[in-house]
């Protein structure tokens, strides 16, 4: 039987602050299959970001085992984790994290420069252009972040996350800095990526609207999985296509 894309077994993470041990993740076990779109919710301080950092290979759990795409991550070295982040993971951050004074095209191409297998410049450029077209920014390729709206910036970030064709995309509060209309715009984009490219998406969020657009909701509380429920997702594409209600009123 093939392994699921993500398999966590009794993941624990304890921070040491001075002499005090702060257990943040206290034994998390879960599986996420290829092609799923999952929301990770829970009250503030429940350990969502910490779990996300572990899943994203930015952090190492104190104990437990983590399989990602048939690779045991906890045994990898720092450079090994960098390679996994480059090839298998895309990140979308709450604050976009675009490079200042750099064009959208260059932003999207940037992760490819850390990819070991040689990708020609032309190939890199073609991929980046295709992705920017896909996220609807074909007219904005030479724009720098200061010339883009928040939603457009986040779409550049999504294109950047996908440039290496990773099997999984992590988004920590991707809509935290956006208004309700652009939130739907970004959600529609994520749903499309999930449906059309088959990329597994895991979204950390406080926002019930965002959580409602996924098929599965994992709730954390005090570093443990509180609930894990399947649901019928709302479709952002429909809502986003229509004019936003407040605008219609005005």
């Amino acid at each position: 039987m093939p392994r699921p894309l993500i398999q966590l077994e009794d993941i624990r993470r304890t921070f040491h602050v001075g002499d005090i041990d702060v257990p943040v993740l206290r034994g998390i076990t879960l599986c996420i299959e290829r092609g799923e779109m999952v929301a990770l919710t829970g009250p503030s301080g429940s350990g969502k970001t910490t779990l996300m950092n572990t899943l994203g290979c930015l952090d190492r759990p104190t104990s437990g085992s983590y399989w990602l795409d048939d690779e045991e991550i906890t045994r990898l070295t720092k450079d090994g984790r960098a390679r996994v982040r480059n090839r298998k993971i895309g990140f979308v951050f709450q604050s976009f994290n675009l490079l200042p004074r750099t064009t959208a095209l260059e932003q999207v191409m940037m992760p490819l420069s850390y990819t070991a297998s040689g990708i020609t410049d032309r190939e890199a450029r073609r991929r980046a252009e295709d992705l920017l077209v896909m996220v609807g920014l074909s007219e904005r390729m030479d724009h720098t972040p200061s010339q883009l709206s928040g939603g457009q910036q986040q779409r550049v970030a999504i294109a950047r996350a996908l440039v290496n064709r990773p099997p999984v995309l992590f988004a920590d509060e991707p809509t935290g800095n956006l208004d309700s209309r652009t939130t739907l715009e970004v959600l529609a984009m994520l749903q499309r990526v999930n449906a059309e490219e088959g990329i597994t998406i895991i979204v950390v969020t406080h926002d019930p609207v965002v959580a409602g657009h996924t098929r599965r909701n994992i709730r954390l509380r005090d570093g443990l999985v509180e609930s894990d429920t399947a649901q019928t997702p709302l479709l952002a594409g429909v809502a986003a296509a229509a004019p936003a209600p407040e605008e219609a009123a005005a």
Partner: protein
Amino acid sequence: MTFAKTLRTALRALRRNITRSALTVLGIVIGIAAVIAMMEIGKGSSGAIAKTISSMGANNLLVLPGAAASGGVSFGGGSTLTLTAEDCDAILRECPAVKAAAPLVRARTQVIYKERNWVPQSIVGSTPAYLEVRDWSNLTEGEMFSAADVRNASRVCLVGQTIVRELFQGRSPVGEEIRLQSVGFRVVGVLSQKGANAFGQDQDDLVLAPWTTIKYRVSGSSGSGAAAGGSASASSTSNSVFPGAPSVFPATSAAQALDKPMPVRFANVDQILVAAASSPEIRSAMAQITDLLRERHRARPGEPEDFSLRDMTETANALSSTTTMMTNLLLAVALISLVVGGVGIMNIMLVSVTERTREIGLRMAVGARARDILLQFLTEATVLCLLGGLLGLSLGRGAAIIVKQLLRWPVEASLEAVIASIAVSAAVGIVFGFYPAWKASRLDPIEALRYE
């Protein structure tokens, strides 16, 4: 990450903040410009000095009468009359390390040609060997006076380029007559240009004649006074004055003897200029000359010499080593300014790393290894310094050219300086860029991404 990509990323990052990049690298620009200017000026000076040394005559030794200050009592050079033309012949004959030797008699007086007059820096009486000693082989025009002219005290002379310019206004002087204190000299040749010597004297401001003529016919030369004492016995002593060639001399009648007053005992010359066979042989030439002259002058062991020897090359070398030392000092100052510039680079790179913490976090999140980050920042610093170095290089060259144009100071472009300055600026970039780059590479991606 390939080198080309790292380079491109670095250039892009530098362009993102072009003003700061320019200001950051200013120290390096100034440092390299100073180094280049110093090296070109220094090299030009020592080149000029080397040229001067060889123009003075290679491996020259000067024999002066009178002891160099000895035992607290000094007569001063030239205060005793001990060197003779025979000494000069003996030196050439008996010292194997000596290539050529010429006696020198000096005078200082006015030279008149038609209605023009001029006081040359030197009026030298010597023998045809003078040209060989001074390495002054080619004449521009005419020919050297002969040994016979020396024996006969012929009134012939050669003139240097400055004399041609000042007295003859550039026209050919050969065949013309110039007068030194009412004594007419026929110009038989023109010396080639030599330029200034290491002490700044114009070597072309020269009238060269047989030493006998200067000594016995031109008053105002150091030897002329001697003629007064013994005109009566002139003919009887002529053989001892010009030994080795009595047969060439026509028998002098008493009338001729009265016409041409000849010296009695003091066939002394002012100096003897000697060329050693090669520069390593200067030492042995000096020893051989000392031994020979001590013997000839009957100096008992322990007694001080009545002559002194001066190594002209050494004097010039001392001058050139002073110049070299000055250049090195200035170079040291320039290098210090490079270090200061490097510290500036380090400072700004540290600021830059702090400022770009989130960028570093992001790059790590998308797969940059610590090594990639280290290399990126190191490349940025190095490229910055190299660009600064290139800019400094052109500024330094410009400064050297300005010095050449405005101050007429000799400068010389030097390939080593170019290579060294590029190497130094790259090294400054690597050395001072390393710590900030290392700090950047050690950042934790989670912390870096969260950095405000």
